[in-house]
């Protein structure tokens, strides 16, 4: 049965190839994010961002190397599972996509990046923020978002220098992402003279945080740092209210820094204490941010979560490099991609030697009147 299926797939490919050769060339861009499982809502937002970029590129009638280009998105699901992540990476390699946008989770991006590196396909992530990713020195791996080092350090600095807090507690959700941000915050906070009075842990599937928050309450900190996603941060804020801890400052990284947070916390009082950090400039401050969001909302109403604009930029960045190199061959456009100087809707994209975003800006947000607003 498998054989028959694969033959079918092969036949389909042949047909597609035949049509493409006629007058236009199909350029496939792979996109990977979790489209099933608990993080599917974030994955969907990412895919929308990529699809939107592809649609706009198609509307631009771009010609590269004398051929009219038809852009095509190859969306894949990794379910936030490293094993599926590598299987998908291999599939995209076989499909000979011109470039890959993704993945979302650092945990899947790191093993998958090895496969992209081996088969020579550039990969641009707009969401995986674990510093480890670019430390491995893989040539084809690019990141256009500030990494956790920048986020954690920025939050710690704000807590110590602007808010002048003395004692903080740290909660991490034991995922590659949450643990990373929380650990950086803790290290930087201690460097700046803050006292970390309590280390607590939860999971990315938990909804009950009463026990750990009560334990934190017994240490009476001025602030709590949470490394994790909004789906947990929302209920956590509600539970802070329930414990009469609404006035304790609540810090978090980009995973909880979403427009959903007020809704997920049912406008809890403690929302007023939230300070969260996101890589890149705020949508309002991005040159094309507001405009981008308008177009996105027109196309996918109510689905904007978080990384949509970064994924959009990542896709546009790949297309930009291909245009400038006048080739869709990864070998040819890779060197051009490395020297990108692209005015994205999230930031001006220039890579440093590790393929991290150079001078990645971070923006702190809070929630006055229960809407996400950039500070300063």
């Amino acid at each position, binding site marked *: 049965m498998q054989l028959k299926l694969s033959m079918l797939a092969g036949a389909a490919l042949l047909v597609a190839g035949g049509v493409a050769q006629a007058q236009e060339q199909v350029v496939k861009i792979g996109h990977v994010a979790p489209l099933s499982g608990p993080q599917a809502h974030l994955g969907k937002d990412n895919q929308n961002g990529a699809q939107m970029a592809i649609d706009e590129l198609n509307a631009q009638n771009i010609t590269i190397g004398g051929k009219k280009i038809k852009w095509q998105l190859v969306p894949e699901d990794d379910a936030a599972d490293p094993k599926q992540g590598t299987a998908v990476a291999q599939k995209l390699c076989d499909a000979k996509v011109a470039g890959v946008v993704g993945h979302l989770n650092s945990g899947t991006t790191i093993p998958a990046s090895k496969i992209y590196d081996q088969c020579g396909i550039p990969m641009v992530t707009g969401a995986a923020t674990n510093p480890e990713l670019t430390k491995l020195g893989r040539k084809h791996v690019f990141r256009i978002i500030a990494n956790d080092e920048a986020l954690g350090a920025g939050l710690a600095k704000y807590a110590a220098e602007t808010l002048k807090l003395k004692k903080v507690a740290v909660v991490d959700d034991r995922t590659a992402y949450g643990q990373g941000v929380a650990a950086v915050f803790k290290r930087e906070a201690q460097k700046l003279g803050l006292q970390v009075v309590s280390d607590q842990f939860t999971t990315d599937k938990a909804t009950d945080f009463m026990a750990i928050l*009560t*334990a934190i309450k017994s240490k009476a900190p001025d602030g709590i740092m949470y490394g994790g996603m909004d789906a947990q941060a929302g209920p956590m804020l509600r539970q802070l209210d*329930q414990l009469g801890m609404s006035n304790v400052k609540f810090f978090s990284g980009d995973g909880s820094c979403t427009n959903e947070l007020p809704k*997920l916390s049912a406008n809890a009082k403690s929302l007023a204490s939230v300070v969260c950090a996101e890589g890149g400039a705020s949508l309002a401050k991005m040159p094309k941010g507001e405009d981008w969001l308008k177009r996105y909302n027109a196309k996918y109403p109510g689905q904007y979560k978080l990384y949509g604009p970064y994924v959009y930029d990542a896709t546009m960045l790949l297309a930009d490099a291909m245009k400038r190199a006048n080739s869709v061959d990864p070998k040819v456009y890779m060197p051009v991609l490395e020297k990108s100087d692209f005015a994205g809707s999230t930031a001006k994209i220039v890579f440093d030697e590790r393929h991290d975003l150079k001078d990645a800006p971070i923006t702190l947000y809070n929630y006055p009147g229960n809407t996400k607003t950039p500070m300063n």
Partner: protein
Amino acid sequence: MDILLQQIINGLVLGSMYALIALGYTMVYGIIQLINFAHGEVLMVGALTSWSVVGLMQESMPGAPGWAILILATLIACLVAAVLNFVIEKVAYRPLRNSPRLAPLITAIGVSILLQAIAMMIWRPSYKSFPSLLPTEPYQIGGAFITPTQIMVLGVTAVSLAILMWLVNFTRMGRAMRATAENPRVAGLMGVRPDMVISATFIIGAVLAVIAGVMLAMNYGTVYHTMGFLPGLKAFTAAVFGGIGNLGGAVIGGLLLGLIESIGSGYIGDLTGGVLGSNYTDIFAFVVLIIILTLRPSGLLGERVADRA
């Protein structure tokens, strides 16, 4: 002291929810010895249905009081879940009653995967916020806080247990259930219709799951398509803790599990100087469970079964 009191309250509230789900598990297990892996997913469907109903009602009747919306939404969700669980039993479990015991276990897993996929298609895979229908201002008792929702959770668990006990012990239906659980064939000879009794058990199980699901949604404020898995697993643990098949055992198991988790994760960090922390919360429950089961192989209140040929 107020911290310990708070942790006890936390544990009791969490444990009550485990207990509610465990009651459903235990009912089904008691009667057909099936670990109903799909129980958590029925809970999820119930919670999501009630979320939809609450949304619709808040839109159409803006002035309606929160408790009225809550009750109506729960009733509708109970109806939906009861029909669902009835169909599941009829389609996926009943044909396998004479098959090897693991066969229905696998269909139960299949049903659970299927229900999650269907929920994603109907409700989209995103976290949804469940509105606060009751006042959110917590009461203060000796330095500890408790919200009206949490009080409701405790109350609902107690009432559910009481009703179930009455149902099983003092009604015709209950007698038929006990007879079927003891020996379905003999029960059949005595005029009990085992199939009907089993269907009824699944409907009661579904109602319990929905009540638990609405309590979860009310207390934590979010509903989503994977919300049934973890509570389902914990409730399974709780049911085994108390002796699977035993109603009182399920409640005691649930409360114990909640207390162990909350007190354990609250104090372990300080007790071990940071070597172990709240990251090991899920382990305490299992460690205690393993110790209890090695001492009492059929759980706390489970019957001791003599080795008999």
